[in-house]
């Protein structure tokens, strides 16, 4: 997609509105849907990875130290990771801005 979405005219729409760039959905910032963000007390974490398994967005990745964290560009703040974490590492807090 050469133009940003809000600059596309009807003439720019591909036949059948198909998306011709594979993986272009990764450009969509879904993180701005979030009303609560996950916070971590990693002193309790045993790196089991259940949060990553349950994340419906697939946006939880391992950091350099082997702990799991959500990529806030995509994280919609659903809180499933916090609910599933057996060690209660994750607390959801209100987004302020």
């Amino acid at each position: 997609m050469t133009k940003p979405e809000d600059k596309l005219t009807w003439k720019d729409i591909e036949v059948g509105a198909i998306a011709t760039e594979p993986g272009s959905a990764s450009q969509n910032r879904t993180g701005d849907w979030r009303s609560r963000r996950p916070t971590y007390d990693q002193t309790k974490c045993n790196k089991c990875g259940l949060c990553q398994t349950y994340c419906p967005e697939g946006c939880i990745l391992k950091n350099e130290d082997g702990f799991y964290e959500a990529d806030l560009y995509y994280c919609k703040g659903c809180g499933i990771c916090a609910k599933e974490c057996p060690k209660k590492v994750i607390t959801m807090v209100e987004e302020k801005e």
Partner: protein
Amino acid sequence: MAKRTGMEVSIAVSEAVKMAKADVIAAYPITPQTHIVEHLAELVAQGELDAEYIPVESEHSAMSACLGSSAVGARTFTATAGQGLELMHEVVYVASSMRLPIVMAVANRALSAPLSVWGDHSDVMAVRDVGWIQIFVENGQEAVDNTLCAFRIAEDRRVLLPVMVHLDGFHLSHMVEPLLFPDQKEVDEFLPPNNYPYPLNPNKPVTMGDFAPPVVYTEAKWAQEINVEKSKDTILDVWKQFGDKFGRYYKPVETYRAEDCDTLLMTMGSFSETAMMAIDKMREAGKKIGLFRIRLWRPFPYEEVRQTAKNAQTLIVLDRAISLGGVGGPVASEMRNALYPLAQRPKVVGFVGGLGGRDISPADFETIVNRGIEIAKKGSDREFEIFGVREE
């Protein structure tokens, strides 16, 4: 040379699909369309048609399978009627929005309840706005010819839209008629292999039926509208080429004895040929009346409709569907809409009749015309009339 053969019209549609060398047929049998897909199943089973036949478990699945096969570039056909068309409804929209050139025969049928397997146009009118090209045929020859044309129109690069060929359930689908079948060689010359420009291919992946947020949905719909409107040029072109090759020419609207007429009677589908008998009789009696039929229902042929109707004083429309609690006859409503901007225009009188397989005879058409002329003169306290209902 073309061969003249007596054949049931449903079987003839299947034979046309065979001559078009369809690659995939995904269909579910439903009256009065069953003979079409039944015969295609036989043709595939007997090795006469080299196609994948997918016997699905419902019409929703039939159209869904058609999406998939059309998306890989396979020439795809299905057929349905009545409740079947209703069940596939949501996927019918997807086919046109994704610009997949599927061809579907619809043996028009009434909708439940009460249950009726017989013909009328209720099923068509429920898919009026889906963005498919829609062609009404009047007889078996038109059904054969327009099935062939439908593939050519649908797959044209300028179009890439699905096409419905409407034939009246039983009144046409189950008639045995003398038909001209072209040679396979001529059909192959007229209809080159499908060459869908965006086939699903793992080496060049695309996403079809993607998500569209509010910021682009309107643009996507407008692109679709422009495409459907513009498809008319290609439809006219294909009909012209068909006529030049096979000698039978088709137009978006047709008239019969409509020269210098005061009154026009409008029908769609197979009832037109019965109406012609009534027109002949009334013409002989000195009435200045002609018949007006719409063949191309979508995209709606505004220009031709206005040109044909503008000089008449009265336009009497017979609808074989009822839009309940609203306009009554959908075709009459569209005619009013098309003619309203004209400075000089006929009065439009709408009748609803021929519902659920009820016949309308030539004498009935005379009654409709006489009543229509009376309403045009004196007015009526109803928005539309229903024909043939028993009051007491």
